């Protein structure tokens, strides 16, 4: 394999690492922050399921990103992923709500503009509409589930200690599902742009053959898992602290709602089911894990009375919808210019 391939892939892997470091907190943050689940347990479960999600169900969202812009060279993909990674870093530094999904879309559009490739506006509209839909849907699901859980807890008359034990198990299972959904939905952000460039040949291991795309998903999954293992602890504690006012039951529902939303936007199986039933399908689009969780928490806060809503967080999210892709698009455009004219790389 050309060693240059790994250098070009590094930006995507870095993005994967950042995603693991940040977004694992959406799945396990409250559980770990409130000490319902140990960090080591959370990190191991999260890593395993994020890799599984990426490898098994990652193709759906990657196809959609591919339709938005088919980046044909590794150098072009490298800069697109790097632009997204830099945007995520800068936005995080400024304390703004950030989404790798929005950054990568901005980067792809930036590449399209530079390469004079047309941007499919139908796909773009579909993707952008999901950014709005994701937190709203998450909030609605959270409200319905939270009401159901509250009703159940009221009638089941479980002992406080037993409720706690069930919630621990529930948080672990919801976290595993959340990590799987995160891997499935967000792997496209990490390695999706490298797929058209086909950096890896098929690999035959005994009876099984791993396609180049599957190898990319696996590699991206490992990058996310390394992010989880090396850097997520502090972020989880912070998220746990910030959301500390919500109860473990609310945290459990927030994680479930988040996971359902990410899964809905990533599941080819669900898409096929809806198609079979003659119903409109849900676009398979990488959405923001952070915004799904915030949407769920806001939904539960609304249910408990509007006093709990943090409007500043909502404002940040809306600002992020515009600022993140624009920033990534600009960085990508100018980065491609340098890569092409200074380093003499073929970027499209």
């Amino acid at each position, binding site marked *: 394999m050309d060693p240059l391939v790994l250098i070009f892939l590094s930006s995507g892997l870095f993005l994967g690492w950042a995603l693991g470091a940040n977004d694992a907190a959406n799945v396990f943050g409250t559980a770990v922050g409130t000490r319902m689940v140990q960090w080591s347990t959370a990190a191991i479960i999260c890593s395993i399921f994020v890799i599984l999600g990426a490898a098994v169900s990652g193709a759906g969202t990657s196809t959609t990103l591919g339709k938005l812009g088919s980046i044909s060279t590794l150098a072009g993909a490298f800069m697109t992923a790097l632009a997204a990674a830099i945007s995520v870093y800068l936005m995080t530094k400024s304390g703004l709500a950030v989404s790798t999904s929005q950054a990568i879309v901005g980067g792809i559009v930036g590449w399209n503009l530079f390469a004079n490739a047309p941007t499919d506006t139908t796909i773009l509209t579909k993707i952008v509409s999901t950014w709005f839909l994701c937190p709203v849907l998450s909030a609605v699901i959270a409200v319905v589930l939270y009401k159901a859980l509250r009703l159940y807890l009221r009638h089941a008359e479980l002992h406080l200690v037993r409720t706690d034990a069930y919630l621990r*198990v529930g948080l672990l299972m919801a976290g595993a599902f959340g990590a799987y959904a995160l891997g499935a939905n967000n792997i496209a952000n990490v390695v999706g742009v490298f797929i058209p460039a086909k950096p890896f040949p098929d690999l035959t291991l005994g009876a099984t053959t791993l396609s180049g795309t599957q190898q990319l998903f696996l590699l991206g999954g490992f990058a996310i898992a390394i992010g989880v293992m090396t850097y997520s602890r502090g972020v989880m504690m912070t998220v746990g602290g910030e959301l500390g006012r919500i109860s473990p039951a609310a945290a459990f529902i927030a994680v479930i709602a988040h996971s359902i939303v990410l899964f809905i936007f990533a599941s080819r199986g669900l898409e096929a089911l809806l198609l079979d039933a003659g119903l409109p399908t849900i676009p398979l689009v990488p959405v923001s894990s952070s915004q799904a969780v915030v949407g769920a928490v806001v939904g539960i806060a609304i249910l408990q009375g509007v006093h709990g809503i943090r409007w500043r967080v909502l404002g940040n999210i809306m600002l992020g919808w515009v600022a993140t892709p624009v920033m990534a698009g600009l960085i990508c455009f100018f980065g491609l210019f340098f890569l092409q004219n200074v380093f003499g790389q073929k970027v499209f």
Partner: protein
Amino acid sequence: MSRMTKLRLFGRTKDLEGQIDEFLDKISEAAVMFRLGVRTYLKEGANGDFKSKLKAVNTLESEADNLRRNIEKELYTHTLIPDARGDVLGLVETLDHLLNLFEGTLWAIAIEKPQISDEFVSGFRKLTNMVVQAADALVLAARSFFRTPHMVGDHNHKVMIYEKEADKISTQLKMDIFDADIDLAHKAHLRNFVEQIDNVADWAEDVADRLAIYAIKRTV
């Protein structure tokens, strides 16, 4: 999660549930023994039957102490119910103090042997009944906190009513004592016992107030 871990997790949960229930049982039992002890003293003085009730309260108090320590240790060693742990700890400790009040009052009676003439017996009996009812209602409120937090308010309401009634009875009893034709030292001695018994209801009310906040936190 492995099958073994899951089983152990719920096994521990069951143990702790049992210990909390048993702790609350001890308080209920101690309240009954306290009531019987005071009644026996009022009827027959500090005789063998009174001493057996005192001994029973002593035993219940030390058993409850052990249970309290185990519950606290279990909660902190295994970081259980992290969001409500402080509240449960506070509840268990304040409830435990109720047992100290029962035990302390019976010991004081056993040591000081207050001379309660017939005219005050009925007042002391009524007062004891009322404070024990307040303690009983508090135990029900505490049980509710663990299983049906939305019901805590109903039981707490009864604690408040019994406490208010106990206050009325104790005030009347003290007035009767100080109107009586006995020497001042005797009056002060009896007043001390009225206050000591009434203190049980006052404490029950304080715990009920805390419990109301804990319950609100649980139902949100």
